[in-house]
């Protein structure tokens, strides 16, 4: 106890959050409230933020426990659209498995999967217009896959090889694809948040019709950038959709370390006076529908929305992480909101538009596709096996024009290569 403490007053206590389960514990999620479909009916996209605060505390759902779609949030997608959604999600999963394995085989330095969270990048992207601008974190590979970005290009980036459009400069998975409305990924968390708001402000200032969307994890909402973005979005009524993928874990820290013990992440919207939606992130139809609502709202000058997807990080944070050191085993198997791929599959089957054979055939086909693309990528090299971009690309793009000191350093670096590889070595 502190010397200055008054003896007639109970001592103050520091609260340090603690997750409910740790390794060795049996996870039990029975306290997670899963409200019925349409517990809160879908409001008009133009509804005043003030009048829809309860959506920040609810859970938008479309698929019920019998895999049937119903209620006011049902986006009414055709069977073909649903199959397309399933296909994208399965492709993301196949891609993730393959690239995770490639890292384990020593073909690259790093990889991050999004297992269990596929809906939050695939269904959302399908609800946007193709030319809307996405500002992802590192876990939204589903955006690129949904927009048809060539897998081989993603792999080239992961391998930092001769085909890598980013010239081997970035850590694996830190893609950039302007033609696909995909901003350059930063390793520094949440920096994309104010940037997305700025893009949306620019679009509004120019009288454009495109909107922007931004993603981050719940842990990242603690960064100041998140709150700056919220303030700017509110002040300028920016046409932006700010999304928090609440997968419960930020490396080893559970959501309580971002304030999740006290309220929802969607509720951050309330304080800023903007619309907030809390959504079942493993219900692809709910995710699609929420994004559609927010996109329509933004596009009609009704302002920004903050969406929280309540989901679960099924695997480790990255290839450098082992979650068995800090969370209970089997958590994902017990997750009350299920798995997004399995739920969409079950729905398609429930409406008679899919079956196990087709599912298996599609699974095999996608695996094959990924393997074939991987072969193509590996022809252009893997990390550390020589086929990188020419050495002098280290010095380009630091500035538009190369200043004298970089020219000198580039010369020096080439001289070093000659020393290493012999006098006949030619820069390629």
């Amino acid at each position: 106890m502190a010397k200055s403490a008054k003896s007639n007053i109970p001592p103050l206590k520091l609260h340090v959050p603690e997750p409910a389960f740790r390794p060795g514990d049996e996870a039990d999620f029975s306290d997670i409230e899963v409200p019925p479909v349409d517990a809160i009916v879908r409001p008009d996209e133009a509804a005043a933020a003030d009048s829809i605060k309860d959506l920040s505390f609810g859970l938008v759902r479309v698929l019920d426990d019998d895999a049937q779609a119903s209620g006011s949030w049902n986006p009414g997608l055709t069977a073909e659209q649903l199959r397309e959604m399933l296909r994208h999600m399965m492709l993301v999963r196949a891609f993730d498995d393959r690239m995770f394995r490639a890292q384990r085989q020593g073909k690259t330095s790093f990889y991050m999967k999004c297992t269990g969270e596929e809906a939050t990048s695939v269904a959302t992207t399908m609800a946007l217009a193709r030319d809307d601008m996405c500002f992802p974190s590192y876990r939204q590979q589903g955006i690129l896959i949904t927009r048809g970005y060539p897998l081989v290009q993603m792999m080239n980036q992961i391998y930092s090889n001769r085909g890598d459009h980013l010239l081997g400069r970035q850590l694996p998975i830190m893609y950039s694809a302007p033609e696909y409305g995909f901003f350059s990924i930063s390793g520094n968390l949440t920096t994309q948040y104010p940037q997305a708001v700025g893009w949306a402000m620019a679009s509004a200032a120019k009288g454009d019709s495109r909107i922007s969307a931004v993603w981050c994890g719940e842990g990242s909402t603690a960064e100041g950038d998140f709150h700056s973005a919220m303030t700017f979005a509110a002040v300028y009524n920016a046409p932006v959709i700010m999304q928090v993928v609440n997968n419960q874990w930020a490396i080893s820290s559970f959501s309580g370390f971002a304030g999740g013990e006290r309220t929802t992440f969607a509720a951050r919207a309330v304080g800023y006076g903007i619309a907030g939606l809390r959504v079942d992130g493993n219900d692809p139809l709910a995710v699609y529908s929420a994004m559609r609502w927010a996109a329509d709202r933004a596009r009609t000058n009704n302002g920004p929305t903050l969406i929280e997807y309540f989901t679960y990080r099924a695997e480790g944070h990255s290839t450098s992480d082992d979650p068995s050191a800090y969370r209970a085993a089997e958590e994902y198997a017990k997750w009350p909101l299920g798995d997004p791929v399995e739920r969409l599959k079950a729905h398609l089957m429930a409406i008679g538009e899919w079956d196990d054979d087709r599912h298996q055939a599609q699974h095999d086909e996608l695996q094959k596709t990924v393997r074939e693309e991987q072969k193509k990528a590996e022809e252009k090299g893997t990390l550390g096996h020589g086929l990188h971009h020419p050495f002098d690309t280290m010095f380009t793009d630091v500035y538009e024009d190369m200043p004298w000191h970089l020219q000198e350093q580039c010369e020096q670096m080439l001289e070093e290569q000659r020393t290493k590889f012999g006098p006949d070595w030619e820069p390629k």
Partner: protein
Amino acid sequence: MMAEVEGKSGVKSMNMIEAINSALDIMLKRDENTVIMGEDVGYFGGVFRATAGLQEKYGKTRVFDTPISECGIIGVGVGMAAYGLRPVPEIQFADYIYPGLDQLVSEAARIRYRSAEDYVCPMTVRSPFGGGIFGGQTHSQSPESMFTHICGIKTVIPSSPHDAKGLLIAAIEDNDPVVFFEPKRIYNGPFSGYYDRPVEPWSKHEDSQVPEDYYRIDLGKAKILREGEALTVLAYGTMVHVAQAVVAEVGIDAEIIDLRTLLPLDIETIEKSVEKTGRCMVIHEATRTSGFGAEIAALVQERCFYHLEAPVERVTGFDTPYPHSLEWAYFPGPIRIGQALEKIMKE
């Protein structure tokens, strides 16, 4: 020697992580005002395991996880210090220290001065830094000169388990804010710079012999690792080991000095050495322009001009963001150092 050892339990072979963990353990035990916080440092014990076991031992109000907000981590550190605690925050990677810069530069660094000592900030910010691990541009940076440029902050960079422990204890006991950068490439073993050779564990290196008890290595004291006559080589962190390996390989009689503390700098040791050798080379992994080598070059020419037989030579990382695939072409390795040695000895 400079090391002041207390107690009489033994000496143990430790890697750098274990030595840092030991320093933190001892300081938590010795001073109940010491607190540790940072992203993933509590239950999990840090992504590099530097704080492993400490929460269990000292409880959650002494060692705790934080929200992912470097601004918050350093800002609350300043506030805790104002209360009278001795916070030792961890920033997960030096590359992520920037959101906390305002609190460090405008607050922690100046609070003693601006309040005429009404308030002080005895805070030690630990952070893994440097490259050589294929971490790409956001897990590889060496931003030390950004901090030596700020008045009011001390900057410390150890190069071995033994030094890491003694310096970290001294940093925590220091009554001013200290930025303590840990070269992550050498957490598990020294690195010669010959990246294609097998990695050596610390256990084969004499500086892995770490007293288990309290000892401190005073800040501001460099260490002469090799005495020599031909030239003075100044380095810190990972580059100390690369410099030693290259000097051995080339077979030159260099005097190698590990600076250990960049600010306050041990200018006396540097001057004495350069006056003896007449030549000075400084090596760092950080980018060149406005890097710490520039400060060294200026100091040496100001103070040792009439002893110099050649211009001060800087061997550094290039002035580009840290690349991923071309990491080893970027890194100031044996070839770059070797060529610089040749050049400085020719003059």
